[in-house]
């Protein structure tokens, strides 16, 4: 049958056979990326430098060990120690590489079958040797220098690309300018007023983000229509249900707005955080006073534009006396509240994603392991999670936070305590997540397809990944989105109490806290606007969670009591 041949093609072959839709889509994507080439290049350079730093650190370990051992046991021992450490590191890397990148059994392919269950070890050994050869080539031969040169050249290229102006950059549509004596504006976009210029920039940023999101969605549709082998998947039904779930779409819109805020924070504010929040006395600007151009630092200007109730107030959507535009007014220190909020979104998102990501990883791994093996590992996990749950979560977070802060632990310095907070939150919230998905995971572990996998010799790890995780991940997505709201509230609450993220890193809760004494006066906006934003974002995440739940599980809409109870049990 010729049909057979047609049907048995890889994705690449299918695209080659009908390249038009894919090319059109790719062209669109290229245009969108070209508009933001500079930003993309900077992001790549940044990720590259992080990776390089990590690899460099790992590569430095054998040297450190060599120095330490050589100091106490002599030079030869140092070399041996370094070699052993290097091998250990490579072995760890081999396990990771085997897991991530090598889907086939090398032993079977090379015919090295020994039959004694040593395959895994031999396999890892082979990869370790291969890695060692590569590492030795890099370190001891000119290959290393060539590689270094190639990376350096690439970095340079990317860095020069990073200087290209992008569509959503501040400089493209500048809003910081001064009034001219003639009544116009100098330095702003097309001579428009700062308010209008800023509004245009915000609009452009959101429009661009929306187009990118829509285009990615379009890509999925192109794939679905032209290249996917299956003409229907269970996911299609879920997506169709979500499309008519308006509460869920509202949530998605809120979350989208929030994420865009976090990503484009530097461009969204009328002024940068560096200039207005972190080092206000190092940045100067010009303004018109009495027909003369004056120069003043941001810090000095802030002092004169504080919002402290009464007549000292710069409210939302107003200019201060230096003709700076404040879309959300200023705070009690005269800093721009809108800029503060945009960067605060970034803080919240980073902490939320880090902590929930970690908690989700722990919870899903444990839930699958406990559901699959049961027995002792299950009992231990129950005891551990019950122990953590039995302590009031907020108290525990406070306690740990104060403990690390008082001890002045170096981990406090990362992201002004944000990283520590994320770790603490992950440690406190994984038991709740694990509990919420325990039912579904026990259920899926008792499905016959798990038995079937065992009956033809599938390994436990692969069984969990292939046959259990798809079911658990959909559930955990619901609870994670609900809990992300809880994390944002807890972070804000901690800042409100003066703990957690320390100043000057912007955090919404701190704004609520600092503005609360002015709430009854003219400076009501300092507390109110961040408070409302917290409400909207948290509601948005909850609505999204509801939407995902109803989309995945059509029965829950019909008022299935157990599904409802399960879905609401995991909230804050």
């Amino acid at each position: 049958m010729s049909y057979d041949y047609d049907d048995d093609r890889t994705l690449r072959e299918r695209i080659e056979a009908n390249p038009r839709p894919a090319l059109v889509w790719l062209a669109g994507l290229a245009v969108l990326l070209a508009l933001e080439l500079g930003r993309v290049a900077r992001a790549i350079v940044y990720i590259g430098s992080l990776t390089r730093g990590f690899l460099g650190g790992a590569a430095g370990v054998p040297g450190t060990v060599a120095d330490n051992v050589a100091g106490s046991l002599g030079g030869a021992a140092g070399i041996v120690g370094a070699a052993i450490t290097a091998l250990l590191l490579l072995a760890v890397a081999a396990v990771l590489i085997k897991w991530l990148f090598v889907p086939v059994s090398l032993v079977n392919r090379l015919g090295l079958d020994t039959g004694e269950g040593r395959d895994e070890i031999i396999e890892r050994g082979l990869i370790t040797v291969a890695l060692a050869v590569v590492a030795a080539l890099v370190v001891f031969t000119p290959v290393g220098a060539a590689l270094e040169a190639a990376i350096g050249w690439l970095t340079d290229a990317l860095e020069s690309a990073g200087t290209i102006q992008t569509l959503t950059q501040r400089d493209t549509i500048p809003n910081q300018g001064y009034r001219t004596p003639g009544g116009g504006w100098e330095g702003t976009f097309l001579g428009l007023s700062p308010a209008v210029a800023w509004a245009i920039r915000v609009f452009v940023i959101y429009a661009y983000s929306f187009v990118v999101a829509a285009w990615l969605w379009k890509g999925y549709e192109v794939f679905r229509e032209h290249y996917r082998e299956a003409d229907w998947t269970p996911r299609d039904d879920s997506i169709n249900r979500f499309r008519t779930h308006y509460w869920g779409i509202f949530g998605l819109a809120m979350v989208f707005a929030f994420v865009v805020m976090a990503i484009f924070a530097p461009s969204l504010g009328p002024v940068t955080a560096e200039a207005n929040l972190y080092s206000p006395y190092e940045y100067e600007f010009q303004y018109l006073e009495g027909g003369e151009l004056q120069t003043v630092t941001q810090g000095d200007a802030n002092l004169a534009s504080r919002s402290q109730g009464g007549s000292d107030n710069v409210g939302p959507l107003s200019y201060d006396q230096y003709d700076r535009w404040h879309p959300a007014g200023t705070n009690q220190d005269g800093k721009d509240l809108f800029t503060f909020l945009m960067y605060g979104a970034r803080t919240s998102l980073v902490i939320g994603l880090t902590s929930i990501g970690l908690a989700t990883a722990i919870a899903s791994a444990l839930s699958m392991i406990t559901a699959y093996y049961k027995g002792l590992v299950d009992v231990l996990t129950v005891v551990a999670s019950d122990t953590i749950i039995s302590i009031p979560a907020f108290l525990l977070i406070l306690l740990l936070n104060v403990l690390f802060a008082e001890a002045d632990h170096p981990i406090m310095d990362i992201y002004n305590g944000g990283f520590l907070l994320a770790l603490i939150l992950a440690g406190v919230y994984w038991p709740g997540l694990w509990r919420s998905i325990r039912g579904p995971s026990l259920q899926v572990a008792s499905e016959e397809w798990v038995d079937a996998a065992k009956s033809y010799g599938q390994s436990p790890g692969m069984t969990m990944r292939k046959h259990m995780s798809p079911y658990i991940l959909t559930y955990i997505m619901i609870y994670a989105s609900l809990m992300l709201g809880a994390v944002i509230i807890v972070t804000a609450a901690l800042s409100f109490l003066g703990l957690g993220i320390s100043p000057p890193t912007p955090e919404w809760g701190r704004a609520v806290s600092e503005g609360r004494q002015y709430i009854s006066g003219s400076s009501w906006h300092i507390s109110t606007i961040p408070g409302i934003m917290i409400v909207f974002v948290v509601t948005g995440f909850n609505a999204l969670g509801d939407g995902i739940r109803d989309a995945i599980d059509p029965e829950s809409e019909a008022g299935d009591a157990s599904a409802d109870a399960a879905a609401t049990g995991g909230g804050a």
Partner: protein
Amino acid sequence: MSQEPVETTFTEPGADEDVMVEVRDLRTYYGGDSMFGGPPVKAVDGVSFDIKRGETLGLVGESGCGKTTLGRTLVQLESATGGEVLFDGTDVTELSGKQLKQWRRNSQIVFQDPDSSLNDRMTVGEIVREPLDVHDVGTPRERRQQVRELLDTVGLQREHYYRYPHQFSGGQRQRIGIARTLTLEPDFIVLDEPVSALDVSVQAEVINLLEDLQEEFGLTYLFIAHDLSVVRHICDRVAVMYLGNIMELGPTEELFADPANPYTHSLLSAIPEPDPTSDSDRITLYGTPPNPRHPPSGCPFSTRCPVRIRPDEFAHLDDELWTAINTLREVLRERERADRTTTDRIRELLGRESRFGTIDGIYEEVFGDVTVPPEVEEPLDEAADHVRAGDEASALEVLFEAFGAVCEAEAPDYYTVGDTDRESFCHRHGDEYRSPAEVLDERHG
């Protein structure tokens, strides 16, 4: 089916002795390994039988008799508590790791529920291909090709490769499950009630498919079922299971036509007779199957057997009275095992009625409308005294001394019955007793 002579080799007389699976005193217990779990559930309690190459061995019995556990133990989905399962001479209960994984290619299982045995999130192709991926057979392209051919073989279409299980009916889903078991070209397949979840009209199609596949690939089946007519149709030999034991095992036609074991008798009498004028008598078993955590001593069927051996001195008692005595013993056994709560104990101390009821109440209920002769009355009264003292064990002892017989005292042997090598697990096949059929005729007319 083809008529070529080659196809008939499986039924040649010489092939009869070609034993593929030997099961020896196999036991599978659940629980019981923990400190607080109490005695284990004896799901499979010492079974031995052979499966010959190319045959279909049926395994029948009521729900909970351990037939599914036996099937799952044979393919090593449950680990055996004791005994051996020899596949071509290798004890597979001892295998582990890579050897177990290699062996699994030879024996597969088809599950009962086609809704639960297929992962809904994978396409049919992925489901059927997974065993090939696990054992790293051929190149990906070859695997896909092989899966398509298999889909063809089990009566699906090749283009179903990229469909999802949702899109199929129950019968089609079971075909997918069957295709998956065939991917590794096994010799032996356990069919765990493969058609009981399907519509009757679809059952026949799947049964025919299984028969065709057996012919085509020379498969050996263990067919687990509770539908006796299906078993009669497809199986070469049948094993009848009750409470973890095999009660009777023999060639299908002979076993159905002339059952030897009392349990087989009662099981077969449960098949509905389509002829309304038929005068065949249904044997009603009293009570429920015993708890496999506390199986009866002696013969597993002794608590409900319609032809239980009775002591000679009570041979003249009528059946109604025997039923009452059996009920009483059953009640006392339950009481003995039941945990008394503190409240129960206090109520008993205060002379108040606990939820267990008094022995007088029980006697009233059980013996209310039967006449009890004095020689029977005596042990009953003695037992009642023990129960009043809270000692059910002694009461049961008294009743056993009076009314018990070899059935409860010791486990029977397997007797060879009939013309072929049929085996039955019943004391009544011994020379000193009358045969089950004879007694059954007498007691149940």
